[in-house]
């Protein structure tokens, strides 16, 4: 098996100079409908005879369910049914699961509950109001079990097991070592170490997850939902429901934000489908905010690190040694894929060859973990940058200098990192230089000293340089296991372009795509570039699973790259057909024709041309005008596979290429901290990103900004808290603090473009944006502002009380 093969598929043509549509700030084609309030979200759908569901959620963290008395609920006029885990056990298989099969999950708890908020019973009624009345009068008796909320305690002998069949609360354990970490540390002049905790937050979109399921014609169950992006995972939902896959039709519905929280969020559509099957009637279930906060399909990373990094006296990194314990909560739907993401950029933008990564995944009485913008790689970025900052301080190097010394240089790409992933291209010094130039770092360093001296203010400057991997390959989900059950290697995206008989364009996408990103803007921009028609004139639709070609949807900053490949591939096929029809009609060779601005013309003689409407007319209505053997119609599809992925080695000494389209970013923040209150405020902030060829700078800037705001939330404000008794303490937006316009500063955005050699147009992903960087740069700036008090951020979020405590302790010791 080779792990360094050259890409043989999808190698793009070299970018041509100058695009007409790509690379300019264009208005989004999604926006007009959203601006008049017609986003067509799941809760906006009206269906005749629709019933509504509400859920009783567990008030206890770990308990056997002894009995559920539904009699009072069923007496309420309008209550149609009450379903419990007993119904799931009798009529369902466990839900889709990419973790160990010994950790099974149902959409309603079976036999016992494992965290506060898990579904215990579902009331289906004629309105949501009546369903909630029904929930209020359910009587449930629980026998409490010993609980575990601390992941370290969960792994100790004698800890109460969450899943008896699994044996212990150690869901998974594995250590990878690449190079020689012992030698790297022994040879280092300086070894820095740190104990770090990244706290639990979540994507927390303004719209929750929801689904409507309706028994349709011919025994087909129709499910409309705003989650579950993989059209190719539909068969797993059918499997859980015990129905044939062709009797389950899932239709994607636009979502009001996801940020990972709706990425393969299977509970809501699976449960709603089950309710419709059991009642034989259309049913809607839309989470309310309490449902979503405590029992969304997943919260995000909750990790405890012991991390070490070796350096020479010149500041060159010799190796990285990570021990990470991840508090995964009660289930493990995604396996440990969030750590696969960390391994894809294990060494960050830096050139060193020795690394060890030891992972333990613990089960505790909390909601399970899953995707949130960064998918776990943003956590690794933070750990890496914490260690580099510490070394810079100890070695007396400026933060930009220690980074610059270790950068992989532009001429070294493609660069294969320890572990096997490959970085396609980059220009890290250019990104750093642009950021330093935008913020005028020397000015702020002088200001910092002056304001401390003259006004007693505490200003900190933070710098972080990080990777933003994009376009995942599905091998990262299973290379953890020596004998994976389903070692999938596909992660495709598809597009279908139809020119209708009047010459107008229809573009169909084959995945759950509109989550607040700009899938239609990107896809129509690429189509426009190919055909020379205005993007706004193209109509976009989304296939349901009875029709869908292979599609994987947004996730891991893949969609722009992948849909561009799919649309361009379909465009090439359709352009060839247009040219062949024109060649036949004009009686010239196809080689002498080109498609320019929506018409096929003779090269050098543009007056001899046929417009797309004329060619479409021939294609649909004048078969005798078509070249012999050509089929009528104008429709082509293309499925674009991952542009560059290789298999892991059997012994996992090399994990293969699985995330090669490598973006990069540098953020610099100037932050003021009040040592007496712990309040922080930004004086300036620049964010420079390299996402390869930029399709729409304004849209990418929006993603960088939105991601940075979320990163700020994870750094300073947002925390999903369970107390020692397992009670959930963050059940409203008054407890879980999403940053408002008062907390988020203006970010000044810059772009550097280093095209990918492997993707169409050289595009790289950029959707996860600022959240990959903000936690690092804000932690760094807080430390810098309060260096005189020995401030050292080791836990996120950093709360004002943490800052004040550090300052007070330092003052008490003086």
């Amino acid at each position, binding site marked *: 098996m080779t792990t360094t093969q050259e890409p043989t598929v999808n190698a793009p043509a070299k970018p041509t100079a100058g695009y007409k549509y790509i690379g300019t700030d264009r208005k989004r084609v999604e926006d007009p409908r959203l601006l008049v309030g017609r986003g067509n979200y799941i809760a906006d759908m009206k269906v005749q005879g629709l019933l509504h569901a509400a859920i009783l959620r567990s008030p206890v963290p770990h308990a056997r369910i002894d009995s559920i008395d539904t009699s009072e609920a069923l007496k*309420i006029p309008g209550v149609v049914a009450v379903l419990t885990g007993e119904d799931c056990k009798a009529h369902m298989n466990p839900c889709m699961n990419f973790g160990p099969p010994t950790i099974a999950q149902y959409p309603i708890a079976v036999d016992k509950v494992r965290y506060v908020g898990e579904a215990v019973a579902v009331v289906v009624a004629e309105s949501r109001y009546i369903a909630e009345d029904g929930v209020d009068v359910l009587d449930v008796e629980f026998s409490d079990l010993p609980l575990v909320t601390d992941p370290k305690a969960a792994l100790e002998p004698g800890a109460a097991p969450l899943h008896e069949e699994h044996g212990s609360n150690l869901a998974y354990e594995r250590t990878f070592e690449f190079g020689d970490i012992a030698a790297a540390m022994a040879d280092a002049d300086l070894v820095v170490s740190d104990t770090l905790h990244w706290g639990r937050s979540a994507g927390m979109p303004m719209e929750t997850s929801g689904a409507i399921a309706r028994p349709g014609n011919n025994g087909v169950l129709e499910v409309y939902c705003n989650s579950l992006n993989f059209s190719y995972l539909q068969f797993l939902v059918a499997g859980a429901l015990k129905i044939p896959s062709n009797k389950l039709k899932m239709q994607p519905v636009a979502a009001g934000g996801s940020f990972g929280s709706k990425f393969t969020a299977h509970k809501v559509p699976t449960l709603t489908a089950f309710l419709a099957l059991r009642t034989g009637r259309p049913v809607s279930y839309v989470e309310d905010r309490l449902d979503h906060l405590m029992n969304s399909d997943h919260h995000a990373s909750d990790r405890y690190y012991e991390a070490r990094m070796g350096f020479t006296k010149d500041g060159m990194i010799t190796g990285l040694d990570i021990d990470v314990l991840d508090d995964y909560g009660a289930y493990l739907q995604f396996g440990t894929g969030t750590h696969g993401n960390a391994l894809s950029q294990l060494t960050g933008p830096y050139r060193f060859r020795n690394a060890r990564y030891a992972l333990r995944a613990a089960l505790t009485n909390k909601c399970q973990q899953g995707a949130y913008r960064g998918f776990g790689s943003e956590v690794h970025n933070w750990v890496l940058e914490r260690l580099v900052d510490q070394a810079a301080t100890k070695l007396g190097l400026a933060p930009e200098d220690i980074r610059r010394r270790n950068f992989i240089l532009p001429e070294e790409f493609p660069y294969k990192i320890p572990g096997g992933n490959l970085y396609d291209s980059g220009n890290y010094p250019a990104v750093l230089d642009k950021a330093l130039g935008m913020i005028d770092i020397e000015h702020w360093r002088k200001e910092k000293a002056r304001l401390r001296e003259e006004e007693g203010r505490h200003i900190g400057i933070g710098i972080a340089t990080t990777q933003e991997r994009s376009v995942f390959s599905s091998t990262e989900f299973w290379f953890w296991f020596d004998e994976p059950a389903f070692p999938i290697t596909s992660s495709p995206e598809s597009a279908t372009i139809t020119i209708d008989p009047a010459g107008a364009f229809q573009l169909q996408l084959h995945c759950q795509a509109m989550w607040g990103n700009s899938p239609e803007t990107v896809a129509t921009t690429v189509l426009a570039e190919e055909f020379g028609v205005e993007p706004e004139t193209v109509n976009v639709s989304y296939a349901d699973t009875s029709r869908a070609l292979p599609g994987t949807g947004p996730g891991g900053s893949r969609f722009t790259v992948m849909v561009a490949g799919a649309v361009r591939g379909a465009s090439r096929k359709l352009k060839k057909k247009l040219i062949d029809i024109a060649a036949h009609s004009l009686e010239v060779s196809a080689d002498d024709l080109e498609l320019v601005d929506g018409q096929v013309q003779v090269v050098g003689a543009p007056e001899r041309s046929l417009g797309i409407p004329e060619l479409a007319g021939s294609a649909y209505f004048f078969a005798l005008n078509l070249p012999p053997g050509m089929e009528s119609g104008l429709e082509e599809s293309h499925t674009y596979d991952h542009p560059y992925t290789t298999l892991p080695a059997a012994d996992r000494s090399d994990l293969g290429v699985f995330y090669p389209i490598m973006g990069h970013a540098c953020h610099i923040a100037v932050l003021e901290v009040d040592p007496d209150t712990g309040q922080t405020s930004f004086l300036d902030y620049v964010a420079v990103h390299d996402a390869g060829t930029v399709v729409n700078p304004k849209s990418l800037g929006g993603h960088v900004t939105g991601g940075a705001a979320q990163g700020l939330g994870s750094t300073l404000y947002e925390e999903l808290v369970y107390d020692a008794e397992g009670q959930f303490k963050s059940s409203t937006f008054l407890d879980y603090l999403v940053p408002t316009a008062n907390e988020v500063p203006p970010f000044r955005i810059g772009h550097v473009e280093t095209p990918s050699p492997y993707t169409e147009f050289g595009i790289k992903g950029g959707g996860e944006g600022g959240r990959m960087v903000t936690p690092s740069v804000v932690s760094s700036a807080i430390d810098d502002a309060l260096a005189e008090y020995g401030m050292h951020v080791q836990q996120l979020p950093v709360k004002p009380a943490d800052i004040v405590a550090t300052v007070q302790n330092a003052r008490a010791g003086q």
Partner: protein
Amino acid sequence: MTTTEHQAAAVDTETRTITLRVNGRDVSRTVETRTTLADFLRDDLDLVSVHLGCEHGVCGCCTILLDGESVRSCLMLAVQARGHEIETVESLSADQNALHPIQEAFAEEQGLQCGFCTPAMVLRCKEIIEDGKARTDDEVRHEISGILCRCTGYQNIVNAVQNASRKLGGKEAGA
């Protein structure tokens, strides 16, 4: 042993007939007294631009204008709106091909991504421009801070409000 609390099955189904003015049109409906204003607007009047993000008065996605002032429609009962005048974003323009200048400003500045907080932000924008409270970026940030946006990081919304102020050119701006 833990048990869930058992309450008596007393379901409130009392109804009232209310008359109010919505987007310039008088409407009269019979509603259950416990129906929230947000649910009434969405379910009875099909004004699905009123989005429910939290239903406990924090996110602001259900913001409407009541007698010209922004309120959270999830915290009011429909019967409390009797005799009042309500505007939703449809009152600016419900035609995707003929946007109101404020909606157009949001499109130009990309002051939205998923669109879920957008109708609330557009209405708040209209209100603060009319009240003369959109003079600086800082002031705009303060005035929109009662509505959560999870996508944009707010800067493009601030830009959209400023753009809209310029478009309206003092015709509507000013206290």
